[in-house]
């Protein structure tokens, strides 16, 4: 089939399909919920966010499957900040997506998540952070886990503990792998 443009509501081709997009124009948020998901059918998600820090201070932006707020997440990251390399392992209350330290600075996160239940959910995330003008504050790569093996992912909450941190100009998209019947 050869054609021009096709706009399908559900494109199933064993390929990636954008299922959520939010451009924050003149609005801010502390969290957004992407609901109606079927993680056991979709199996894999890719989440991208270019966040403008709307909070006057440090803000970390994370993802909570099914809005799980418990300390059920683990991580191992390595980073470069100026001339320093470092690594940290720990536990958290979300999957970290990106971060910024100052009002108005940018961060750009890309996360791939194995979503299907049955086993601990794992993700790999990369982001540059605290971007302003020509300064990139740091570059990170994270391995992360959500220690929940049983629940199907039906929502992803992108959130921050810093009120209004998802600032005007932010952009969040979610891609899912859609399999043909």
């Amino acid at each position, binding site marked *: *089939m050869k054609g*021009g443009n096709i*706009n399908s509501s559900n494109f199933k081709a064993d390929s990636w399909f954008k299922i959520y997009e939010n451009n924050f124009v003149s609005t801010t948020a502390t969290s957004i919920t992407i609901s109606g998901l079927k993680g056991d059918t979709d199996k894999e998600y890719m989440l991208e966010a270019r966040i403008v820090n709307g909070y006057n201070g440090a803000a970390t932006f994370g993802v909570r499957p099914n809005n799980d707020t418990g300390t059920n997440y*683990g991580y191992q990251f390595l980073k470069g900040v100026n*001339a320093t390399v470092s*690594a940290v392992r720990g536990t958290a209350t979300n999957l970290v997506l990106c971060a910024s330290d100052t009002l108005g600075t940018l961060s*750009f996160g890309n996360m791939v998540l194995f979503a299907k239940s049955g086993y*601990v959910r794992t993700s790999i995330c990369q982001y540059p952070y605290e971007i302003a003008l*020509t300064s990139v504050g740091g570059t990170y790569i994270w*391995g992360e886990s959500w220690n929940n093996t049983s629940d199907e992912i039906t929502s992803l909450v992108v959130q921050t503990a810093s009120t209004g941190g998802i600032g005007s100009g932010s952009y969040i998209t979610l891609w899912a792998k859609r399999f043909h019947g």
Partner: protein
Amino acid sequence: MLAGDIDAKINSTMQVIYDSGEMTSTASTVSITGLNGDADQEYYLIARIVCGLAGGSSYYIRPNNSSTTDTYGRQTLTGTLGTAAATRSTDKEELNFAYADDINHLTFSDVTFYVKSGYVRTAINNRADGIDGTTVTTVGIYGHSWNETSANITSLVLLGDGAGCFNTGSRLILLKKVLATGNMALSIGELDVRGVVKNTWQEIYRNEFTSTTATSITISGLKGNTDVLYRLRTRIVNGTNTASYIFLKMNADGGTNYGYQYLLGYITTVLAGRGTDTNMGMGCIGVLKNELGSSESLIYAKSGYVRTALTKRSESVSGTTLGQTILLGFSWNNTADEITSILVSSDQVNCIGSGSIISLERLNL
């Protein structure tokens, strides 16, 4: 609605909008024009470059061919031999996305670039630089900024350090997020495609181990010279109570024909290292049953040159405890043979346990 093969712009997918093909002559610059960054919002560049300059070259992106001094910045995180390093620059006149250290050496990189105006433009860049035979000189992840907030990006100019910097064999591929709505689009409900969707990543192999285990699996029937680019994702669950390791072999080649450079974080330690091996390592999946590891590899498969791969790995995951997080650049020092199979194997019997997932995607060029 069912469909076979499709060659069209599909709304809400990521599709190829530019493919240089493997260059048949040298080039000094490559201009990708006719873009609309404010509508497209995001681009994804894959670059496999054969260096055309003696002594090497860096490679750069100039949106709108802008080379204004002090408008680009970056933060690097790299591994070269045993040294992990980081640098920050705020005074560049272009975005440096790749480097090869001598003529006919390779570099393999990708760039995810948020291009919409209104704010500083940002990019994430993974790269394996200076590849020759089984040597991968440097692996790195760079964060970039372009401090130009108002101009709509209508072109991307790619260039290097001198005339002929792109040697024969170089290939540049640009994808964008497709917006195909409105009156000029065929609007339909569900579209179930059973064939090939041109210009998109499409899964061509998937194996989910629901109640079985394996020591290895072979993804066969591949046509690497036609397919060109693969993306392999694995989530391997340890099927044994033994420390286990997963690796790949192209065409089951078990010779010491693979090279790597890694950069990893383990607890509070950052390490880098380089070496050769009989396979492409996909990492440790832990010491106990049901521990797991995940990986994602971008592989340039076409013969004619050393094959290259970029891999991200998260290893030895158990509950909320993770092992290493690693970035690697690989080479397979075989320039002649078409890749017809990829072996995914473990060093322990039945280590690929129930719950494992192996997925191979092809970019349909």
